[in-house]
C-alpha cells in the first residue's frame, strides 16, 4: 500500500465505520428481527421468542390495514410528488423572472415554512381546515362551495394533509430549482427567443433539459420523502378518519413502538426499504434514458 493509499484509507475509514455501525448493522439486525415474532412477551422473557421464517411477511399480506396503509402511501406519493414539485418549480420560475423585485425577501418568505416546526404549523393548519370556522371553508363559502369536512371525511383527509405538506416543503425544492435555473445558458435562451420560440417552447426545449438532472434529483428525494410520510398525519389526524391517513410508516410506528411488535414492524420496514430502492432504481433508469444522469 502506498503512502497515498494509506492516507486515503485514513480519511475514508471513519466514515465507513459510521456507515457500518449506524446503517449496515442496524439494517442487518432489523432483517434478523423480521424473521422472529419479537413482541412484548419477548421483552418480558427471551424464552418466548420464536423463529417464524417468512411468517411476518405472509402475515402482513393478509392484514387489511397493511394494504390500506400501502394504498394511502401510494396515494400520498402519486398526488404529493407532482403537487410539491410542481409548486416548487412554479414558484422558482416566477421568482426567476427578471421583472420580480426584492427576490431575496420573497425567497426567505417562501422558504420560511420549511424551517418551521411541523407540530406548531399543524396546529395552525388544523384551525385553517376546521369544518365550522376554518378560513379555508370560509373562503370556499364566498365562491359558493359548501363546507368540506377536511379532516373528518375519509375522502378529503389525504388532500387536506397534502395541502399542508406542500405548503410546508415546497420552499426547499424551490431554492434548489432557483439555483438550477440560474445555470440555464442565457445565449441559448436569447437565440430561441430570436427564432420565435414561444414561452412554452422555450421552457420545454431550453429550460427543462437544462434543469433535468435537478428535476430528477428532486423527484427521487420527493418520492422517498412521501413514501416515508409520517409526522404530518400523526399530528394532524392521528391516522384517522377511519384510518384513511394511516401510512406505511405510521403502521410501522404503531406496530413497533406503540405495541412493541418489533418483529412485524421490522418486516414492514424491510418492505418499505425494498419499495424505495426499486422506485429510485426505476427513476434512475428513466433519467439515464433521457440522458439526465
Amino acid at each position, binding site marked *: 500500500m502506498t503512502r497515498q493509499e494509506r492516507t486515503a484509507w485514513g480519511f475514508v475509514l471513519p466514515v465507513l465505520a459510521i456507515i457500518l455501525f449506524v446503517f449496515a448493522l442496524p439494517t442487518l439486525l432489523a432483517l434478523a428481527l423480521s424473521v422472529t415474532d419479537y413482541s412484548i412477551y419477548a421483552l418480558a422473557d427471551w424464552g418466548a421468542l420464536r423463529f417464524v421464517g417468512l411468517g411476518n411477511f405472509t402475515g402482513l399480506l393478509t392484514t387489511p390495514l397493511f394494504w390500506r396503509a400501502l394504498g394511502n402511501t401510494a396515494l400520498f406519493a402519486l398526488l404529493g410528488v407532482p403537487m410539491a414539485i410542481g409548486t416548487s418549480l412554479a414558484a422558482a420560475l416566477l421568482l426567476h423572472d427578471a421583472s420580480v423585485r426584492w427576490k431575496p425577501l420573497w425567497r426567505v418568505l417562501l422558504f420560511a415554512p420549511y424551517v418551521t416546526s411541523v407540530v406548531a404549523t399543524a396546529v395552525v393548519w388544523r384551525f385553517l381546515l376546521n369544518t365550522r370556522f376554518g378560513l379555508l371553508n370560509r373562503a370556499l363559502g364566498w365562491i359558493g362551495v359548501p363546507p368540506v369536512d377536511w379532516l373528518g371525511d375519509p375522502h378529503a383527509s389525504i388532500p387536506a394533509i397534502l395541502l399542508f405538506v406542500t405548503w410546508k416543503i415546497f420552499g426547499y425544492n424551490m431554492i434548489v430549482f432557483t439555483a438550477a435555473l440560474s445555470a440555464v445558458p442565457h445565449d441559448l435562451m436569447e437565440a430561441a427567443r430570436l427564432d420565435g420560440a414561444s414561452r412554452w417552447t422555450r421552457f420545454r426545449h431550453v429550460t427543462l433539459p437544462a434543469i433535468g438532472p435537478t428535476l430528477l434529483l428532486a423527484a427521487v428525494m420527493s418520492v422517498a420523502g412521501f413514501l416515508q410520510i409520517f409526522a404530518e398525519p400523526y399530528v394532524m389526524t392521528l391516522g384517522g378518519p377511519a384510518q384513511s391517513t394511516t401510512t406505511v410508516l405510521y403502521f410501522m410506528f404503531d406496530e413497533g413502538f406503540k405495541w*412493541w411488535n418489533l418483529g412485524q414492524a421490522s418486516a414492514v420496514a424491510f418492505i418499505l426499504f425494498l419499495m424505495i430502492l426499486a422506485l429510485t432504481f426505476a427513476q434512475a433508469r428513466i433519467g439515464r434514458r433521457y440522458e439526465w444522469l
Partner: protein
Amino acid sequence: MTYGGKLARAAGWSRRSVVAALSMAAAGGCAARRSPDTISLWAMSYEGDYSPMLMPGFTRATGVPVEVQTLPWTAAHEKLLTAQAGDSLPDVFMLPDGWVGEFALIGALAPVTDPALLTGLFPGVSAATGPDGRPYAVPWSVAPQVQYYRRDLLERAGYAAPPEDWDSWRRMGQRLKARAPDDYAFLMLLNWWDSLFTFAGQTGANPLRERDTRGNFRDPRFRDALAFYVSLFRERLAPPALSTEVQDPVAAFAQGYFAVYPYGPTLTLDLHRRAAEIPAALWSTARMPGPQGPGRVSGIAASLCVSARSRRPAAAWALVRHLTSPASELTYQRLIGTLPARAAAWATPQLRQPALAAFAEQMRAPTREPMIVEWERIRIEVQLIAERVVRGQLGIDAALVAMDDRVDRLLAKRRALVEAGRLT
C-alpha cells in the same frame, strides 16, 4: 460565485456558532445536573403538570428532592415502553389500571409489599394486579365516565335531568336535535373508545372468552351496545368527529354545539376555570344511561407504580405513600379535579359537591377489566372498526365478525403461551 461563497461562509459561521452555543448549553446542563439522591416521577397530563406543587411538602419531610416530568396521554404508552426497553424508567410513575398487567409482565414494576398502602380504599376501588395475581400498583385517582349535561338546554327540551335508560336517552337526543338541527345532542369522539366500552360494560357483556384468549364481541349484549352507539351517529344526534377536529370541546359545550358530553372528572376543572364562558348553574352531571338504567362502568383509574429497577426504592415508596395520602389526593382534587381513591378523602366536606355525587355513585359499580397485555390495543382496534360502522363502511354484524377476527389475531401469541402453560 461570490454570492455562493458568501453563503457558504455565512453557513460555516452560523454552524460554528451553533456548535459553540450547543456545547455551552450542554456544559450548563451538566453543571446543573440533579443531585444523586433525587428521585424522578413521570405522570400524564394534569397530574404531571401539577405534581411539582405537591413536592415541596415531600422534600421538606424526607429531604429527598423529586424531579417531575409530564407525559402527554397520546404518547405515554410508547414512551413508557421504550423507557423500560432502554432502562430509563423513572423511580415512580403513573399508570392507568389497564396498563399495569402489561408493565408487570415485562418486569417493569416492583410489587406492592406494604399492605398499608392498599387499605382504606374507596369501595369498588382495588389495586391492579400483574399476571401472577400480586398487586403492582397503588390506586391514586378514579375516573369513571359520567355525562355532563347542559341544564338549560335539557330544560328547554322538557327534561330536568337526562333519562337513565338508553331508549329514553336517545329520545331526549332526538328532541334536542329537533329544537336545534344545526347542533348535536351528544359528543362522543370517534377515535376514543370510552363511550362504546361504557355502553358495553353496562350490558354486562364479557369482551373476551376462554381465559381471555379470544374475542367475544359477537355476544348479543355487545351487539346491543354497538347498535345503540352507532344509532346515535346514524340519527345525527352526535357528530362523527375525531379528537383532532374538536379543538376546544369546552367552548363548543358552552356554545351549545352539543348538550351532553360523556367524560371523566377532570372536565369539572376545565368547566370551573372557564366559568365566564359557561357558568356553573348551566351544567350538571349524571350517571351514564344503561339499557334499563345505570349499570357498571369501567373507570379509568390512575395508579402509582414503582419501577423494579429503582435505585432508591425506599424513597420511591415514600413518595407513593405521600401522593396517595388522603391529604394529597384532596389537594389534587382541588387543583385538577381528579377523584380520590381513598375512602377517608371522600368523608370530607370538600367532596360533598352535588356535581360529584354522580361520580361517587358510579365508582361503587365498576366493571372488572381483563388484565392482559393486549387489552389497550384491543379497545383501540375495536373502536376503529366501530368508527367504520359509524361512517357506513361496514354493517354491524360484519363489524362484530371483524372485531373477533382482529382480536383473535392480536391474542394469537397470548393463546399460544396460555396453551403451553407459560401464562395464566
